[in-house]
């Protein structure tokens, strides 16, 4: 049982490829080992910005055998009258490269035949690992690839060394002009190497003592712990998201945690600006004390100790320069209130569409007012229109020109200086993933409908990997807002308001996202499909139907409910232009009963659950109906009448959507 170690040494890999690339290596290695029929116990993958590391433990020495079965001549041709092998059989054996002992006779549908059971494999694993390694490395996929040498091998960044050992033996192979060997390199500056690895078991300790924390999980946990420790030392708390932690983990090979400070004067700048600069531009970890932002930050550095003083001072100067810029912008921006910027919207054109920001705002207004009317929110109409007037004006500010990701937030912050809460909060949250205020939600819905329809109208329809305007994300957020907040409005009229050129295309695009949204809410696929079959363009209606179906689906009565409904549908689905049901043609009591049930059924039943309960008696009623009534009689009048009756029955189930989707999976 041996251990194989493969280290792909590279120039700094982009932090964004992690953790996906680690999963890729795990999955692809397992597939390759399986395909090569190599038995093993376990695999481990580690990564730093400069190396991807694979351990395969418990390797057998020899490849697993494979037994191939090849059909040969029929038995009566294979053996002579004495039961000895004929020339035909011997020829077959020779061609397959096996021996006569490998032949077995088996009966098939065409008679008895000779079958050769050929054993292949058994190659030493040592001879396969080089090829396997090459295949693995070549199969790794990245969003962006580059070549750097003569063979034009493609990878994320240049590969500079390959370490490949089976216990203590080098597994030789060559890729991208690099030959595998037993050397690795430590931390770029603290222990550059080269470092000889005599045997696989030496690797981990050698790297650890060369300032490389190769285990990314250990590195991440270490960073988290040390950051928290450092923060608590000054009675502060780190503002550390999973995303930021993941990123800084893959920006260092050995983390040093360093605390820096900035002048308190900068705390007068709104917090969102400071944290955006610190996190997105510098990858610092901001700190807070007693709920407010503290004038300090933590650097996750790749060097420390003697260098710490320089690193702290250098970073402090950088952040001070950036914050000075921000302060300058803030001062300039606040000297012109948002209201005075409205006229400038006419001068800004829109990427990917005709017209200016002012045109966009006016079109959004049509949608917004439609929403307000549909939801009867007249008391906030004025405030929302004011918010709409202002929500794009922050694009003319220095701050948003410098930090475009702050659009919306800056609008809210600047509006806060002059406007009431309903207005500024609507602006502040309207670009957020999770708008906190109804006004923000309505603005967001208006904007996203506008974005999607106008881009589709211009022909920018997302496909495959092409979605330059992020319409998929917009659509998902739109659907979530409508579904999560039960905002029950038909989107069809909104598409009309926006002069949508192809409503079906847009609706299809939205339903794809709605499908994913409902699945994400834990609703079973067939129930989602049923709800999507509703004749509506209201996301909230579809969502509520799906949610109700989910609740109902666990009832014992559910399966029969479904089959009864679908039975009505199936028998009538291909029949068109049926005359209205005429009770004078009824011949059997069950027709009469069914008819009365339909007529007596309450017309306005808004609760789906109540509808379900009220429809349950139909199960038995239909069961008796189909037992006693022959629908497809020769007499056309009677036949059509019965079909018409069943079609009307099925209509009672319409608010549940397309139940045939559910029936399929029962």
């Amino acid at each position, binding site marked *: 049982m041996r251990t194989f170690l493969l280290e792909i040494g590279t120039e700094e890999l982009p932090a964004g490829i992690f953790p996906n690339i680690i999963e890729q290596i795990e999955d692809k290695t397992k597939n390759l080992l399986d395909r090569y029929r190599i038995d093993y116990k376990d695999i481990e993958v580690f990564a730093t*910005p400069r190396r991807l590391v694979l351990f395969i433990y418990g390797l057998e020495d020899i490849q697993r055998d494979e037994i191939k079965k090849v059909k040969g001549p029929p038995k009566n041709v294979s053996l002579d009258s004495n039961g000895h092998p004929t020339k035909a059989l011997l020829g077959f054996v020779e061609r397959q490269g096996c021996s006569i002992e490998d032949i077995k006779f088996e009966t098939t549908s065409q008679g008895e035949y000779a079958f050769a059971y050929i054993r292949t494999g058994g190659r030493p694993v040592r001879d396969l690992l080089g090829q396997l390694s090459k295949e693995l490395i070549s199969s790794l996929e990245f969003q962006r690839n*580059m*070549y750097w*040498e003569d063979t034009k091998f493609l990878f994320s960044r*240049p590969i500079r060394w390959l370490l490949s050992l089976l216990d203590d033996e080098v597994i030789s192979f060559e890729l991208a002009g690099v030959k595998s060997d037993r050397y690795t390199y430590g931390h770029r500056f603290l222990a550059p190497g080269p470092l000889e690895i005599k045997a696989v078991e030496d690797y981990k300790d050698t790297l650890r003592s060369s300032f490389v924390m190769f285990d990314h999980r250990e590195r991440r946990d270490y960073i988290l712990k040390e950051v928290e420790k450092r923060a608590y030392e000054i009675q502060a708390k780190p503002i550390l998201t999973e995303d930021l932690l993941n990123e800084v983990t893959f920006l260092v090979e050995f983390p040093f945690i360093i605390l820096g400070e900035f002048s308190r004067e900068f705390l007068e700048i709104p917090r969102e600006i400071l944290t955006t600069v610190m996190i997105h531009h510098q990858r610092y970890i901001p700190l807070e004390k007693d709920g407010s932002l503290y004038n300090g930050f933590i650097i996750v550095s790749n*060097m420390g100790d003697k260098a710490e003083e320089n690193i702290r001072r*250098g970073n402090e100067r*950088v952040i001070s*320069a950036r914050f000075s*810029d921000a302060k300058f912008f803030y001062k300039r921006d606040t000297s012109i209130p948002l209201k005075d910027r409205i006229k400038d919207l006419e001068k800004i054109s829109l990427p990917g569409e005709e017209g200016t920001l002012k045109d966009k705002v006016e079109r959004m207004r049509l949608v917004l007012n439609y929403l307000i009317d549909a939801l009867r929110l007249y008391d906030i109409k004025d405030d929302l229109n004011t918010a709409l007037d202002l929500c794009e004006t922050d694009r003319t500010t220095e701050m948003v020109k410098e930090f475009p990701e702050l659009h919306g937030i800056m609008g809210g912050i600047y509006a806060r200086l002059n406007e009431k809460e309903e207005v500024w909060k609507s602006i502040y949250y309207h670009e957020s993933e999770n708008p906190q205020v109804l006004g923000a939600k309505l603005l967001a819905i208006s904007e996203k409908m506008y974005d999607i329809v106008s881009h589709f109208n211009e022909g920018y329809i997302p496909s495959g990997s092409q979605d330059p305007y992020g319409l998929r994300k917009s659509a998902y957020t739109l659907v979530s807002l409508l579904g999560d907040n039960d905002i029950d409005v038909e989107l069809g009229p909104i598409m009309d308001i926006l002069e949508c050129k192809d409503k079906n295309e847009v609706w299809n695009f939205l339903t794809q996202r709605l499908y994913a949204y409902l699945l994400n809410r834990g609703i079973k696929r067939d129930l989602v499909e049923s709800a999507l079959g509703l004749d509506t363009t209201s996301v909230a209606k579809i969502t509520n139907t799906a949610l109700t179906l989910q609740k109902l689906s666990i009832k014992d009565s559910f399966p029969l409910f479904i089959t009864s409904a679908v039975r009505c549908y199936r028998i009538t689905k291909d029949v068109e232009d049926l005359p209205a049901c005429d009770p004078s043609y009824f011949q059997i009591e069950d027709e009469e009963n069914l008819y009365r049930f339909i007529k007596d059924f309450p017309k306005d039943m808004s609760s789906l659950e109540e509808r379900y309960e009220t429809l349950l008696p139909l199960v038995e009623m239909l069961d008796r109906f189909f037992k006693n009534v022959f629908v497809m009689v020769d007499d056309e009048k009677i036949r059509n009448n019965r079909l018409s009756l069943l079609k009307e029955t099925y209509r009672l189930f319409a608010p549940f959507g397309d139940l045939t989707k559910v029936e399929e999976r029962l």
Partner: protein
Amino acid sequence: MTFQEVILKLLDFWQEQNCIITQPYDMEVGAGTMSPDTFFRALGKERWNVAYVQPSRRPADGRFGENPNRLGKYYQLQVILKPAPSNVQDIYIESLKALGIDPLLHDIRFVEDNWESPTLGAWGLGWEVWLDGMEITQFTYFQQMGGLPVDVVSAEITYGLERIAMYVQEKDNVFDLLWNNDITYGDVRFQEEVEFSKYALLNGDNRTLRDFFDDCEREANRLLGLKLVLPAYDHTLKCSHIFNLLDAGGMLSYTERVSYIGRVRALARECARLYLEMKGELV
């Protein structure tokens, strides 16, 4: 270390790496990449190692001399190593040591940043090099130039000279940099920053610039027809700079912007194509 010493030390270092030291291209360009010493030499198969200072004009970044960190024109030190040596990152680190920056006393990191020039039809993958949190160098492996995939990959190392000098001199305002021991950066360049910002941001003439662009574009095409690729490229660079002026002056709508970029790119592509064709290397 004064500003000019930074430049001389770096040029000296790269000279020792067998780069030829050429002079800045004598036209308005936005980056060292646009000089023919990079643009054309990055195409084709031959070996090429060059280093030069390139004054780089970015009219839209002009701040009238009021911003301590941002300039409408700044100095890049451009290095091309073709083919890219396998230890190119190590060589770069050595160049920092030549400036007195000891990697054991600082946090030097390669942080993903991919470069792209839509006007040149060029892109590459690489990094920003961070020195204690400040970006001092753009490091790129070219993948495409003039719309064509490169045959031999060049490593491009572009130093931000003012940034490095500010770091080394511990200055917070670029205009306070010591150019030599007696003269500051502001003494040399402040007026230039003020006047060129006023020109580019406030006083450009729309008609003049547009006509100028059209004339240069026409001339570039005429020269391409005459197979005079280097003069044609000069006119392409003129178009590129005029576009930058139109853009900085806010004279372009979004669609116009896209259109102008396309026109410059078309010229750059033609130059690249013709260059390789004349070398007999067009695939």
